[in-house]
């Protein structure tokens, strides 16, 4: 079989986002926000003659997991956790604590919003959102009697039952992903996650919950991935990785895990995937049944493209099939790049019957 792996490798190089600390522009933007937050909190609390709340911050999200990809039809996002040294029991309304962050940052850009899971600062360039910073607000585990970390959820005008402190383990999740397999096997796992995320960006609408969320695809890969590689040199213990096979294996298992669920006389076919850490929710729970049906349809189209590419003799045609499903960042080689160079040929005449 032709060597398609090198085209997957090029594709991965084209779509991957470096780890957060390696991206100086984003680090700079984050630090501006963190400085602004510190200054704003200090001012707002000193104006009220109250002591300024203490907190620590940490990176979270796909950068920290090493699974980030370059966005194609949305903006860059920066995920930061702000963990206040407060007991959640002292603040019955978690949105009060989110307001501290909101009020410290509002006016910093044209658009700062309290969204249900976080406070978001949007940066715009020529009218388009260029990137946004999500600040997730926590009550720190050191300050809670049960030793747990809680995420503040709710919007400014949410009803009280939509304002909750949710047990959450963001760092534990980051560590689970980072420690999933080791060495080159871990690297293949991360590549598979990135392929699925770009497939998602290339095949689903961005509005609402039409697309499966990135963390959902990360968790399904975490659940279903197994390394696919061929031993090529027993003595050097050298393997050739086969990303097509690894991705196909995850996709097949995803499709086979769709199941019919019955509820109050209605039934729906869904893929349920639970966070391996608190709050252990179904990562795809927000998708409607129609969105789920589209999700499955798109997974089958992905599987078809992978099968065609796997069986195809001509690497050019194989890559064309993959480019259709992954978009223009998947390279299609020139015919001459796929073949061995040959010396000249001289033919004689021929007589057939």
């Amino acid at each position: 079989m032709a060597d398609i792996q090198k085209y997957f490798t090029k594709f991965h190089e084209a779509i991957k986002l470096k780890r957060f600390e390696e991206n100086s522009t984003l680090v700079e933007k984050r630090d501006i926000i963190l400085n602004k937050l510190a200054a704003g909190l200090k001012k707002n609390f000193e104006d009220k003659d109250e002591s300024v709340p203490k907190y620590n911050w940490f990176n979270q999200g796909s950068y920290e997991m090493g699974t980030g990809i370059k966005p194609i039809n949305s903006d860059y996002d920066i995920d930061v956790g702000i963990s206040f040294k407060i007991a959640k029991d002292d603040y019955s309304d978690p949105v009060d604590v989110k307001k501290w962050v909101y009020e410290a940052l509002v006016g910093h850009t044209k658009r700062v919003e309290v969204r249900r899971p976080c406070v978001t600062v949007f940066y715009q360039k020529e009218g388009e959102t260029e990137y946004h910073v999500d600040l997730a607000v926590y009550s720190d585990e050191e300050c809670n009697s049960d030793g747990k970390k809680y995420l503040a959820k709710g919007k400014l005008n949410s009803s009280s039952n939509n304002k909750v402190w949710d047990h959450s383990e963001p760092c534990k999740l980051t560590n689970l992903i980072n420690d999933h397999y080791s060495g080159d096997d871990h690297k293949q796992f991360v590549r598979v996650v990135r392929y699925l995320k770009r497939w998602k960006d290339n095949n689903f609408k961005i509005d609402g919950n039409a697309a499966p969320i990135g963390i959902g695809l990360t968790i399904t890969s975490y659940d279903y991935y197994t390394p696919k590689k061929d031993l090529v040199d027993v003595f050097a213990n050298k393997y050739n990785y086969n990303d097509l096979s690894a991705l196909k294996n995850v996709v097949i298992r995803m499709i086979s895990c769709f199941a019919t669920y019955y509820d109050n006389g209605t039934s729906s076919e869904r893929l349920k995937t639970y966070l391996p850490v608190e709050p252990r929710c179904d990562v795809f729970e927000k998708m409607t049944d129609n969105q789920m049906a589209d999700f499955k349809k798109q997974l089958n189209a992905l599987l078809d493209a992978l099968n065609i590419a796997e069986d195809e003799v001509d690497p050019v045609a194989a890559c064309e099939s993959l480019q259709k499903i992954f978009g223009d960042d998947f390279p299609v080689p020139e015919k001459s790049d796929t073949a061995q160079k040959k010396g000249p040929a001289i033919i004689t005449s021929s007589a057939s019957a």
Partner: protein
Amino acid sequence: MSVTDNLPTNQIVYLRPKGGRVLIPEVILASIAPYVQNSWNKPEAGGVIMGRYIKDCEDIVVDKITLPMLGDKSGRFSFFRNKKSHQKVIDHEWEASNYTCTYLGGWHTHPEPVPTPSFVDKNDWKRNMKQDFFDSNCLFFMIVGTAEIRLWEGNKHKNSLTALNRI
């Protein structure tokens, strides 16, 4: 009903005896289709096959064929291929492809559904393997029948011919 209704139009893939595959893409089959000897007045036709030896494997992709040209002679049951005009195409394709589109062998038609090589064909193929100059160990010979297209792989060193099976 014409028997050519059975002739494949999708790509054909053959399995090579020692592993690897030979791909005849749809576009090649389409250019051969007009020459299929499916009526009494169509003469035998033929040409050379060119294509790629894919890197890191034993797979081969047919990318070009030549069609009957000036200087060729064809009858109902015979075809004579003139070397000059076909050689020109081989040289041009080879240079234009950065020396990757190479001479792979020859093709011709038969007015029978499932073609088998004649005595003349087999002798010609063996002579090709000895007298043609090419940068590999093997040549491929294709006979286009009215219902099937068959492919043989000839080994230069073993002086052998093997009929290839389709996948």
